[in-house]
């Protein structure tokens, strides 16, 4: 191993990882907005964005430029400290929460073994909940500091909603924790690895190696519902209900400060998708039994047709972006797919991240799908549902799981 890497690796590697992750996540946020508008457009029998670039692919860039160039007025009578601090807090906390997520198994690059994520701490789940617990302040402060009744109502709703749903969110994962006996997200994924059972070993099905098992599907449903409420998304988007509150807590924000809330919300979506993937859907594990080695060519099978489609779709366009960039990207994707087919080592190394990405993408798609499908809750329905349905059900799940574990121990 490189001596410099051996000595200063503990410092260099995390910095590189942080820079990479922030870059990837911000790009993913931008294109998540594009995906959301596209998918919802198609759900509602519209096209979604399609003017800026082919398939509207440059729309996120145009939006970004707009955010930077727009005027950033300061409303009268705001509480300056809270007003300026709130967007920073929201963005900072949502980006920080990604630091404890393991995106794949440990990797060895240039002889340096490291975890596939930024921080590998043994209470990563608790750390994540600690960060989420603080994220309500960004919204509450924004609502209160803006000196606007709609913002204040949005902030109030958000605080009440987060207090109510955080409880069932925390309780819903206790079942998984009991089964795994650890708070480390990495170990929770490894616990779900049952070798030849494939996806049957994931917590949502719940088989263990000896053929016994208890499904955590109740916990999964409770977790996902309360997580949607925690991220203020439809059908729990009361804090920013545009038909009632203009835009809720960020009514008075414009330009980059609004963008910070926006990025914060989308990053929180990504975090929740990652977390549900890890807790209930086996994280980076392949859904197929370990002995089915042919399934390792799945990345190639997806990448090559995707690349070819992008290539041939791109050359039809007359614009520079369509004519040159799209075919280039498509060609690269195809080459990557063929390369994976050729190189066994690289193909094995990307299996984990590939499945993780696929599952997170599915969860994000589900988020968007919900937004295109469901109407918003009424406020009293929201509170009733949180306290009278979700909380008892998640407590029942804890009791059920504990009973099962006791029975396994003694029976």
């Amino acid at each position, binding site marked *: 191993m490189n001596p410099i890497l051996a000595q200063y690796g503990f410092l260099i590697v995390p910095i590189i990882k942080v820079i990479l992750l922030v870059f990837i996540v911000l790009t993913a946020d931008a294109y998540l907005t594009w995906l959301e508008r596209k998918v919802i457009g198609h759900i509602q029998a519209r096209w979604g964005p399609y003017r800026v670039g082919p398939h509207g692919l440059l729309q996120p860039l145009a939006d970004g430029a707009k955010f930077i160039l727009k005027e950033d007025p300061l409303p009268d009578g705001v*509480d300056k400290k*809270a007003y300026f601090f709130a967007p920073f807090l929201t963005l900072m906390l949502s980006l920080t929460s990604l630091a404890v997520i393991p995106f794949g198994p440990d990797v060895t690059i240039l002889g340096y073994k490291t975890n596939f994520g930024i921080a590998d701490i043994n209470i990563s789940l608790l750390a994540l909940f600690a960060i989420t617990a603080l994220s*309500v*302040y960004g919204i*509450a402060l924004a*609502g209160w500091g803006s000196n606007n009744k709609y913002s204040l109502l949005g902030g109030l709703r958000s*605080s009440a909603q987060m*207090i109510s749903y955080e409880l069932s969110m925390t309780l819903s994962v206790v079942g998984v924790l009991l089964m795994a006996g650890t708070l480390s997200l990495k170990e929770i994924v490894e616990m779900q690895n049952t070798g030849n059972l494939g996806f049957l070993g994931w917590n949502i099905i719940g088989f263990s190696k000896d053929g016994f098992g208890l499904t955590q599907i109740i916990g999964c449903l409770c977790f996902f519902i309360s997580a949607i409420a925690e991220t203020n998304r439809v059908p729990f988007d009361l804090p920013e209900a545009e038909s009632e509150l203009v835009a809720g807590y960020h009514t008075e924000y414009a330009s980059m400060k609004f963008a910070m809330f926006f990025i914060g919300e989308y990053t929180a979506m990504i975090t929740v998708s990652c977390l549900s993937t890890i807790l209930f859907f086996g994280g980076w594990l392949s859904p197929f039994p370990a002995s089915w080695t042919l399934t390792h060519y799945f990345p190639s099978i997806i990448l090559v047709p995707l690349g070819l489609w992008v290539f041939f779709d791109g050359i039809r366009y007359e614009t520079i972006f369509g004519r040159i960039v799209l075919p280039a990207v498509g060609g690269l994707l195809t080459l990557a797919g063929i390369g994976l087919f050729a190189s066994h080592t690289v193909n094995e190394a990307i299996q984990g991240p590939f499945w993780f990405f696929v599952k997170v993408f599915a969860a994000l798609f589900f988020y968007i799908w919900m937004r295109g499908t469901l109407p918003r809750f009424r406020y009293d329905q929201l509170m009733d549902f949180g306290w009278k349905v979700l909380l008892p059900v998640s407590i029942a799940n804890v009791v059920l799981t504990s009973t099962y574990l006791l029975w396994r121990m003694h029976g």
Partner: protein
Amino acid sequence: MSAALLIFFVLAGLAVFGAVALILQSHPIHSALSLILVMLSLAGLYLLMGAEFVAAVQIIVYGGAVMVLFVFVIMLLNAGEEERTNFSKLATFAGVPLALALGGVIAAAIARSSGHLPAPAANGALTPTRELSKLLFSEFVYPFELTSFLILVAILGALVLAQRERN
């Protein structure tokens, strides 16, 4: 100065700063935010002593749940700026000397016992959460259950108080 000591002084300084700001701020929300700063610095201090679980729970429970409730109530009541009043006579003649005396007593007690206080886990070793929970459910199970019972009583009390008008 070792790194741990440096971090300790930064966190302790933040905690004291937050506590002083909590009293001096004139707006309730700013006071609540200062209190959150105190809670977070304390969590950092716990982590420095190797109590990872306690640190995380400190943030979740105090930094998150409790203080969110504070902020929520302050926002709900739409409390405005507090007016600064002069010190009352009672505060001047009884409060200040008593506070000074209390501070003196605590400082003296710490100074006297600082020689034989157990050192925190200096090697940065963390107390495993598993050990903590084993202790909690074996040796300290009665205090633990009694505390839960106390909280249950408090919840019931809150429910009774909230229901009073309806009857």
